[in-house]
């Protein structure tokens, strides 16, 4: 682990507190472990927000989260004393009941901790280069995900344009899937709709989604046989250095060729102004 003039002893100068619903291997690697009751993340974080503002919360209410008042007070004290705190959070927080609000609770808490010391928060992104997708969509469309381009410009509304919702409602009539296997992970009604409409899959393997698709194209695995860039979860881009030469084309090449094949067809959006002053 990195050493520096502020933390000359590396890991020894750092304190790791793990908060989870069960004691995992990661918990054993941490200095402290807090077991929170499942589904109580939002309440715990909201209590902590209140406590750093010296608001009174009853011990019983705190205990209902699975963490005692004493432990929580001690944690907050330690956090306030830290020189530089980081809150990492994962899908256990953002994909359980409360979803984006659980993440919002943590981000708000991190922001408010700056009244005492320096704190930042960072999502532990899974799925390889999902951060890259996020970053690129933001600079090219203004929005990170959940985008519709059907009016010729980007619009954003998670819940309306996010994939699971779109599939469950049956609001798409053709799906192009790349670098993901929703056929293995999404709820059944979503998968059923993928099977119903023409689905196109680009993947290095024939996946669950490939099996229910009309078109599967095998591509070279990114970073192993296809070069390019991948973003780290803190939004630092890294060069990819493939070790193998794939017999398959890269995703980049295949998507470009599909895009070019579409561009050869007549445009259906005609008589559009160059710009509109107010959006829908």
């Amino acid at each position, binding site marked *: 682990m990195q050493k520096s003039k502020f933390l000359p002893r590396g890991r020894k100068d750092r304190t790791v507190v793990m908060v989870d619903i069960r004691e995992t291997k990661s918990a054993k690697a941490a200095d402290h472990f807090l077991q929170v009751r499942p589904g109580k993340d939002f309440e715990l974080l909201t209590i902590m927000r209140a406590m750093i503002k010296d608001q009174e919360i009853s011990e019983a209410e*705190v205990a209902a989260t699975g963490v005692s008042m004493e432990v929580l007070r001690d944690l907050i004290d330690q956090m306030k004393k830290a020189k530089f705190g980081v809150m990492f959070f994962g899908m256990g927080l953002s994909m359980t009941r409360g979803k984006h609000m659980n993440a919002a609770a943590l981000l708000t808490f991190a922001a408010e901790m700056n009244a005492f010391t320096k704190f930042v928060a960072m999502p532990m992104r899974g799925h390889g280069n999902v951060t890259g997708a996020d970053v690129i969509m933001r600079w090219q469309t203004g929005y990170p995900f959940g985008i519709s381009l059907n*009016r010729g410009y980007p619009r954003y509304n998670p819940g309306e344009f996010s994939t699971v919702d779109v599939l469950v409602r049956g609001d798409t009539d053709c799906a192009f899937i790349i670098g993901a296997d929703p056929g293995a992970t999404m709820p059944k009604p979503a998968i059923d709709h993928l099977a119903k409409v023409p689905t196109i899959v680009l993947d290095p393997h024939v996946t669950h989604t490939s099996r229910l698709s009309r078109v599967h194209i095998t591509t070279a695995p990114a970073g192993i046989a296809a070069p390019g860039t991948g973003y780290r979860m803190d939004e630092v881009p890294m060069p990819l250095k493939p070790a193998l030469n794939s017999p398959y084309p890269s995703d980049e090449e295949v998507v470009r060729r599909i895009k070019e094949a579409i561009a050869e067809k007549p445009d259906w959006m005609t008589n559009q102004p160059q710009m509109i002053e107010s959006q829908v």
Partner: protein
Amino acid sequence: MNAITLRLRQEPVVALEAEVITPDRFAEMSHEEICSSIVYHGKRQLRLDEFFDVDGERSDQLILHGDLHRVRHLGRAMTRGSLTAHGDVGMHLGAHMKAGQIEVFGNASDWVGAEMSGGKIHVHGHAGQQVGAAYRGSLAGMKGGLIIIDGSAGIEVGMRMRRGTIVIGGPAKDFVGLQMKGGTIVLRDGAEIRAGAWMQRGTIISLKPLDMMPTFARSGLQNPTFISVYSSLLKPHGCELPNDAAAGGYLRYAGDRAVPGKGEILVWQEHSANEAY
């Protein structure tokens, strides 16, 4: 002025964006102009009469028939007249509405009356998520007007609302009044968890017991006078609030202390059930 009637003839396969269907627009349009106005079926621009049979012209009274659950943005930003739908309607019903009336004999999808500032929406069936809410990133949701949902509602009812009233007849899901800044939400059949989370101001009145956030402080049973004022205001819309001190009172919760906020949640409590608390 005769009403304009639109009957859905061709069901959309994907979402049909029809923000043109508002009293404001149609009030000035001839029959042909209405028929040829543009709707968006997914990425394609089509004439409205590819989906609807249109009867009438130049009226700000609109009557819609059919299964409109994929038809979005009905009554968007309307400022006058009325829109009545017989059948389910899609997302964004009456979003940004300023005045006029919307009535739906059926269910509505998400974002009913989102960021509206005036007028009245009455959904006789159920509503989806984010009734009267703010869109993502906006600082304020509903800023005025009245929304009545007879049936149930999804999560985040009245999220970041600033003024106005929302009445939910059936049970509401999580996060009612999330980050609320003002206005009133009446829950006639209670809600699931986290009602009032992070609220700054405003009032949530529940006629059923609520699973409270830990960051609200409870004070005693009260019968505030404004309840009867509210009740008489809502009575013409078919909603009455109990305010008989002999029958019971309202448990008052103040919060959310995480903010810290000055919102209040009033939970009706009949005297007979009092021992439970």
